[in-house]
């Protein structure tokens, strides 16, 4: 017995000197994804017809700078981007084998190049011009409700309340914005009422989930059904009977920002927008600062991570949650206004069409971080826009396949492809003393 003790002890002291990193399996999923995409881009380059050309339009009608249509020789352009993509994929393998920390620039650069390679291939000898600015403008427009929704979701979840009802809040915001704008014949009145609608839905959510500790997912689902039904009912009764009074189209005017809106390509995309989009920039920026640097942000995160700890330092956990979820609801309601007054449309049944759920996915993909969620929402918006553009110019791949893209990305995102995502620790858990 004692003999064995000694011998085991001798063996045991040695692992202390052993490097423990050696056992961690290398994650190959990113390099493999890059490799597959790089191989696809090579395939694109191979299948481009000899001497084909791809045309890009870099400005749209009303722009300050009119840039002539750019014409690229498809095959060389395709090959150059394919080669760079292959090199980048190789670099990713090399990095993974060294267990280096992944950096954000690589997927961004890779994504932009891959999209370029794809567009060159898809637009080769189509006789159609690829309207880049239109595509980007469309991408932003499709992203706006997603971004508002994702910000709503993350404010709620950072304070520990799961919000599945973003869809309902967007829809309620869209509805009330349209009705208010119509009744007061002013689009800006819609902006006043949209957040109220979202906040009311938020208040219902928080009333049941905080006061009565009902399962938050169930309350959220029920609220979605409730708002879809309620707006649908009002639409088919009051709104349809007297559309001039209740559902007349109103549009927020575009307010180009002098100077900035004249920058080629990005100027018209980002800075020739309505006040709603500028508000969105402001909200994302403010959340990014306030969530991580302010007293409110620190307390919000504390309440979402460890409510009991927050309680022991005198923070009113449930009050904090109530305020935050209502505030978040107002943000989503504002986002809903984009569907109607933001685009000059009348209200239509279920016009949010699942954007609230995609917003939720954007929040997860963005790891509960305002900037991450912003980028994720933009990615979703862009892939939808890409699908729309390709549907009009006609491509070798069916555009329906491309329209699936956001949902495919969502599934991968939620399944944790983007690495281990850590939600706030107390997310979805009611706080009872």
């Amino acid at each position: 017995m004692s003999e064995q003790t000694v011998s085991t002890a001798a063996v045991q002291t040695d692992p202390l000197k052993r490097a423990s990193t050696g056992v961690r399996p290398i994650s190959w999923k990113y390099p493999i994804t890059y490799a597959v995409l790089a191989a696809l881009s090579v395939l694109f380059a191979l299948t481009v017809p000899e001497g084909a050309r791809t045309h890009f339009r870099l400005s749209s009608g009303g722009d300050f700078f009119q840039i002539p249509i750019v014409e690229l020789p498809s095959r060389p352009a395709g090959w150059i981007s394919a080669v760079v993509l292959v090199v980048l994929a190789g670099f990713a393998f090399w990095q993974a084998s060294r267990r280096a920390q992944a950096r954000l620039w690589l997927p961004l650069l890779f994504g932009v190049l891959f999209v370029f390679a794809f567009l060159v291939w898809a637009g080769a000898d189509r006789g159609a011009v690829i309207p880049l600015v239109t595509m980007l403008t469309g991408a932003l427009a499709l992203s706006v409700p997603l971004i508002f929704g994702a910000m709503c979701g993350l404010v709620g979840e950072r304070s520990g309340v799961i919000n599945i009802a973003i869809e309902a809040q967007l829809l309620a915001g869209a509805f009330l914005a349209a009705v208010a704008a119509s009744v007061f014949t002013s689009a800006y009145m819609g902006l006043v009422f949209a957040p109220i609608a979202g906040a009311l839905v938020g208040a219902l959510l928080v009333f049941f989930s905080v006061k009565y500790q009902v399962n938050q997912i169930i309350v959220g689902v029920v609220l979605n059904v409730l708002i879809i039904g309620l707006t649908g009912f009002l639409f088919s009764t009051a709104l349809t009977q007297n559309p001039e009074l209740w559902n007349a189209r109103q549009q927020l005017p575009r307010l180009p920002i002098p100077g900035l809106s004249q920058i080629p390509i990005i100027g018209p995309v980002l800075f020739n927008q309505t006040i709603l989009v500028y508000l969105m920039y402001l909200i994302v920026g403010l959340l990014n600062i306030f969530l991580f640097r302010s007293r409110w942000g620190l307390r919000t995160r504390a309440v979402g991570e460890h409510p009991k700890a927050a309680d022991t330092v005198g923070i009113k956990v449930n009050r904090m949650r109530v305020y935050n979820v209502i505030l978040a609801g107002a943000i989503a309601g504002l986002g809903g206004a984009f569907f109607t007054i933001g685009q000059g449309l009348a209200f239509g049944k279920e016009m949010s069409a699942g954007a609230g759920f995609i917003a939720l996915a954007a929040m997860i993909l963005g790891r509960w971080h305002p900037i991450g969620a912003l980028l994720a929402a933009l990615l979703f918006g862009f892939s939808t826009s890409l699908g729309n553009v390709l549907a009009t110019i006609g491509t070798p791949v069916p555009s329906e396949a491309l329209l699936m893209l956001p949902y495919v990305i969502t599934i991968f995102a939620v399944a944790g492809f983007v690495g281990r995502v850590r939600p706030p620790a107390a997310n979805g858990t009611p706080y009872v003393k």
Partner: protein
Amino acid sequence: MKLELRGVTKRFGSFTANDRISLTVEPGEIHALLGENGAGKSTLMNTIYGLYSPDEGEILLDDQGVSFNGPGDAVDAGIGMVHQHFMLIPVFTVTESVALGYEPTRAAGIMDMAQARAKVLEISARFGFDVDPDARIEDLPVGAQQRVEIIKALSRDAKVLILDEPTAVLTPQETDELITIMGQLRDSGTSIVFITHKLREVRAVADRITVIRRGAVVGETSPQSTETELAGLMVGREVNLTTAKEPADPGEVCFEVRGLTVLNSADKVVVDHVDFQMRRGEILVIAGVDGNGQSELAQTVLGLRTPVAGSILLDDKDLAPLSVKQRLAAGLGFVPEDRSTDGVIGAFTITENYVLDMYDRPPYAGGPGNVALRLPVMREAAQTQAERFDVRMGGVDDPISTLSGGNQQKVVLAREMSRDLRLFVASQPTRGLDVGSIEFVHRTIIEERDKGTPCLIVSTELDEALNLADRIAVMYRGRIVGIVPASTSRDVLGLMMAGVPADEAQAQAATHHTVLAEADEQAEAEENK
């Protein structure tokens, strides 16, 4: 500041957690509150801290009656508390944790991080704490986390500091440092309430001791009392602090773990190349501070986690391809660490809990394909076992949640030991139990050993390790630092729990004794007198 309680009573439903408790803590005094698990110490402290409001009685600070609507009020009145389970947010930095709730701000509620940081540095400098204000809480060892909690309390000018079981998570050396800190605080005029169930510590640090049992004060005494006296007061009868056991008679090697490596869900290595062997009829205790991979090791042996490398051999058979169920069938008995979530199903009856892993085989099941449960057989077996294991209960048809923790644990033990075991694994088998139940559990484990079953026990309680083990393996950051005989001193084990290899620990411990080890020697001397 002087803290006085007069007749404080707190009830939960029909259960009286605190029964007319009166006690006075003088300024600059370390007042120990000694009592068993479940005696009502934590309830009392949560009442003082404003988390509960007392049903009767009053709390006085410097002879002024106070009433708190929440912890915020208590903090404003100068009461600080270090909870047994730290109230720290793992993803926050030290500065953020200390500032939370009392944030220095500039315009628009933006935090003044420089000021918050300076405050952390100032307090840690004042008491010689070595704490990095920018470190993330989850990256700090528990000893450092506790210092953050103390800084938190001090940053709010606490005049009365409550420490709830502060040593539960510390190595003896860290406990030593804590004792020094407590001395410093006392000398600067802070009153300290020190809650514990560990007799040794009480005698080493307290100026006065109040003992509570079943929610009521049973006596006030001085640290000069012997351990036996204190134990008798705490439990209400004579107790044996150590369980008598014959020396082990180890047989052939029958269980072996080789190069076992396990990752957690975040892909971090939690069990790192662990090797050890066990012989029949011996108890090997895996000691170490909580969170160093012991729980994961035990779970991997049962099959709840899949290792990325290494093998587990029981009777020369590799367990790797076997499911949990097959492992249990192969003769593995397992007592999980969290009784209420993993050991029993609260809403099920005692009978149902007793047959949880045997319900689908004869004699408890019958008929074609064993589809029918034989309920009378189950009840009878549960009844017999409950009597054998001295489970205090109304009847075997009561939900198990109506039993005390100790009795629930007895049901778990009865279930696991009702099969013929080739290996018995228990994780924290006595956590949260009262002294009587602890004695029973220890005796039962030793009986199982004497039957020839190798027993692998994970324990973070050094007392338990020393009491129960034939050999002790100390784990630190997923690795086994060394396997030593059970006669190894507390100081050496403490150093090993901080990652110092066995031989080095021997050398260091020879030159520096901790307060607790000295108290140990003193107690022994008294016993021998």
